[in-house]
């Protein structure tokens, strides 16, 4: 009920919870940041207490009073314990591996119990995606949660706001806290599978002479595309697997290839161009070629290897991103 109200009125929630801009490093949930309300079970508990009290008064049951008041004290203690279960948890966002747009970003979050007691049943939820996980944090220990969030667009994806919640120990109260760590995930453009530029990509300037996807040496398999020659279809592989695969051949292992923005069809939009370039980077890396990337204002010298591919993809991801 309350959470629904807050979801509809983000500015009210902002005011109520004093949301802060993303916080760097380890965020410690101090008591001030922990909110607590009775859970539905808590209201039921309260109603039970009311009935017990009325019965005890009416029948003048001394022990009835004792039970009722013990339960009331239990409610009070449960409230303090529930808040304590969340207070002084250190939240640290770990490194998130880059992903391609359209794949889920995986944010690792470390929850650390900065106290000499364990904290059972802590729910961590990514508010944007609704991804959630329940973990137990050992005393003075750390629990890791991985929260997935959809990465729709290329560029930096901030982790966004997280909520930690607990109802331990009796389920009567719901304590929660919001935290927005300063963590982000790099999102590469969605790679478009298209054939690598052909031998025509040959640069006049350099002494490179190699068409890349030649047909001398078998270099691997890739998924079939309509433009592929039927002669290159790996029929044996088709028999084994579900999809059509195309045999790839590379002309020369050391061939250098420039993946050049300028050579893309002029009709393509910005994102399409980046997608195609990203697809080329993947294909080139898979093909084992040395390749370079040329974007307006950006040039990455030809090289090979995972870190080179990552650099190229990052350049694509962040191209013209503010």
């Amino acid at each position, binding site marked *: 009920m309350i959470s629904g109200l807050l979801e509809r009125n983000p500015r009210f929630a902002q005011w109520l919870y004093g949301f802060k801009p993303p916080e760097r490093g380890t965020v410690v949930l101090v008591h001030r940041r922990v909110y607590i309300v009775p859970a539905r079970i808590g209201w039921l508990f309260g109603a039970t207490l009311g009935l*017990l009290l009325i019965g005890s008064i009416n*029948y003048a049951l001394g022990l009835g009073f004792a039970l009722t008041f013990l339960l009331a*004290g239990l409610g*009070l*203690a449960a409230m303090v314990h529930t808040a304590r279960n969340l207070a002084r948890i250190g939240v640290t966002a770990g490194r998130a591996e880059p992903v391609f747009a359209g794949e889920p970003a995986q944010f690792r979050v470390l929850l650390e119990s900065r106290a*000499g007691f364990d904290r059972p049943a802590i729910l961590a939820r990514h508010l944007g995606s609704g991804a959630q996980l329940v973990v137990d944090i050992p005393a003075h220990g750390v629990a890791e949660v991985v929260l997935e969030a959809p990465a729709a667009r290329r560029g930096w994806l901030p982790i966004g706001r997280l909520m930690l919640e607990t*109802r331990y*120990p009796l389920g009567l109260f719901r304590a929660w806290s919001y935290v927005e760590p300063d963590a982000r995930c790099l999102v590469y453009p969605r790679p478009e599978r298209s054939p690598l530029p052909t031998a025509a990509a040959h640069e006049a300037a350099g002494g490179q002479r190699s068409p890349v996807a030649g047909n001398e040496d078998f270099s691997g398999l890739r998924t079939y595309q309509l433009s592929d020659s039927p002669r290159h279809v790996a029929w044996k592989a088709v028999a084994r697997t579900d999809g059509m695969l195309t045999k790839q051949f590379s002309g020369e292992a050391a061939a250098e290839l420039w993946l050049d923005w300028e050579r893309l069809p002029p009709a393509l939009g910005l994102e399409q161009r980046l997608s195609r370039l990203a697809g080329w980077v993947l294909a080139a890396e898979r093909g084992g070629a040395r390749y370079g990337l040329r974007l307006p204002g950006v040039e990455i010298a030809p090289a090979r290897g995972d870190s080179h591919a990552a650099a190229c993809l990052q350049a694509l991801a962040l191209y013209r991103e503010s």
Partner: protein
Amino acid sequence: MTPAPHPLAPEMRLATPRDLAWLIGALALAILPHAQRAPWWLTLLTLCLFGWRFYLSLDRSPLPSRWLVLGVAAVAMLGVWIEYRHMLGRQQGILLLVLFAGLKLLETRTHRDATAAAFLGYFLIVTNFLYTQSIPAALLMCAALFAITATLVGFSAPNRAARSNMRTAAVLLGHAAPAALVLFLLFPRVNTPLWGLPQDAYTGMTGLSETMSPGNLSNLALSDAIAFRAEFQGELPPQALRYWRGPVMWDFDGRTWRLGDYVPARADPPTAGRAAYRYDVVLEPHNRTWLFALESAASVPPRARYSGDGQILARFPVRARLRYDVTSVIGPEARSDEAPYLLRRALRLPESFNPKAAALAAQWRSGARDEGEVLSRAIAFFRQGRFVYTLEPPMLGSDSVDEFLFDTKAGFCEHFASAFVFLMRAAGIPARVVTGYQGGEVNPFDRIVTVRQSDAHAWAEVFLPGQGWLRVDPTAAAVPGRVESGLARAVPQGEQALIRHPGLEWLRDLRNQWEAAAHKWNVWVLSYNPERQRELMSLIGIRDADWRSLTATLFTALGMITAALLLWSLRRMARPDPVQRAWRAFCAKLAARGVERSPHEGPRDYAERAARALPGARRAILHIAALYMSLRYGPHASARRAKQLRRLVRELRLT
């Protein structure tokens, strides 16, 4: 986007076999005391339902259909109806609650249902208190409460070891105790029930009744139940003077004595006498209005009235243990006047009953000079009459006094009192029957006098001109042992309850100790009432506390307890060490002036950059950084230098 199911919401979490095992254990503890009153088949049925549910959870079988559960419920309710022939009593309601605990488990899938079933356990605990609130009942309550709490903790922390959850439950209950104590002592109490209670709420309370006929006191005398306890300040009155006055019987129909109309008081009770005793009485509920006091009461407890025949009557029937304090005097000044209509009433006798007794009385009267002589003749008659005091008197016919006096010569105190008052009235002396208790056992451990139903007694009071009403105990005259040493030695052996056997002293000792504890329990826990609350408040300096001052004190105390709990919850929280805190404060100060430390920046680089940006504070900034680095990474950390760092940071002014 539809919100994902909430994994902490109880309706989303399935009850595991471990959860169910705990829940069943806790509920069984709560049901345990009911089992001694419930029909055996109902207890067995409930336990079978528990077992069935647990068995189903082991291999995750589907739960029985709702129709099957309803069928079981209907059969069980039919059984209860056959047992009691109606369904609307308190006992039946509680039995259905017990049964419901079993049925509820059969439809328990998630933690929400399981929690509701656990709360049902609270009602099972409290309904037991309608029958008994003894110390064992309280201990059982604590055990059941602990089990329910541990069960709930188990629901909340399913992956944790049961031992850890039990420890948490114990800590929780420990933390609940101070608040519970404060609430118990300070929550404003009321004396009257909120609404009418069911008809059968007070059945089974024993005590004296409004009538006295042959046989009903001797029945009562077989009961070992406690009537009341009295705690004297100072001296105890001797056994022979411990006459606890109760209902006074005026009207006789030949067989049964009755209270008759209420006699309004004409004056306050007499306050001067030979000896005065002050004492507290804790009266067990007996569902009548009589309050018992030592003869004769000189003060009347609050909310009670004093009647013209010396009874003390509460405004409402005593349905809960009641505590009052009274002062009594021995040998009060005589009140020699009495209303003529009362004297006439004290002479009234049914026509044509007991002719032999009437003739004997007339014979005494004619041969005596005054009432005093008649009285002494009558006492002599009883003393020499070889009467037998017995708990099992022979049955008497319609001329009950004649038969007792001249044929059977065996009876209990009601026979003696009834016959004596009859004789007095027949001889023209106003007389009345007084019932109450005589004696009581003194507990050597706390000097509290325990008066049991077996101490019930009946005696006579006669009115002599110039002397007023005098107590005469014909039983004491006939069987002196009754009054001097209590019932135990007066009644022939074999008729007594085993515990009164003179040979079993150790057993009596044990019982005395137990009862001393039970008395404290009654006074401080069970009959804690508004009066006692006021006494307590006057101890802390608040006189005449009403509900407002009680509530104010209550909330103050609860606030303090909550603060203490919060302080506790902050304990064991790792705080950054003071050096680190000072460094953070330093960084925050610089950041406020626009020099923010980037995460990768070490203290030296940062300080140099800050010093360049804020040349006015250059010296201080570099000094603080140097001190921090030496404290943090150097070999010579000391508390004094840490303090210096904190001071420097505090005094740093960046203008």
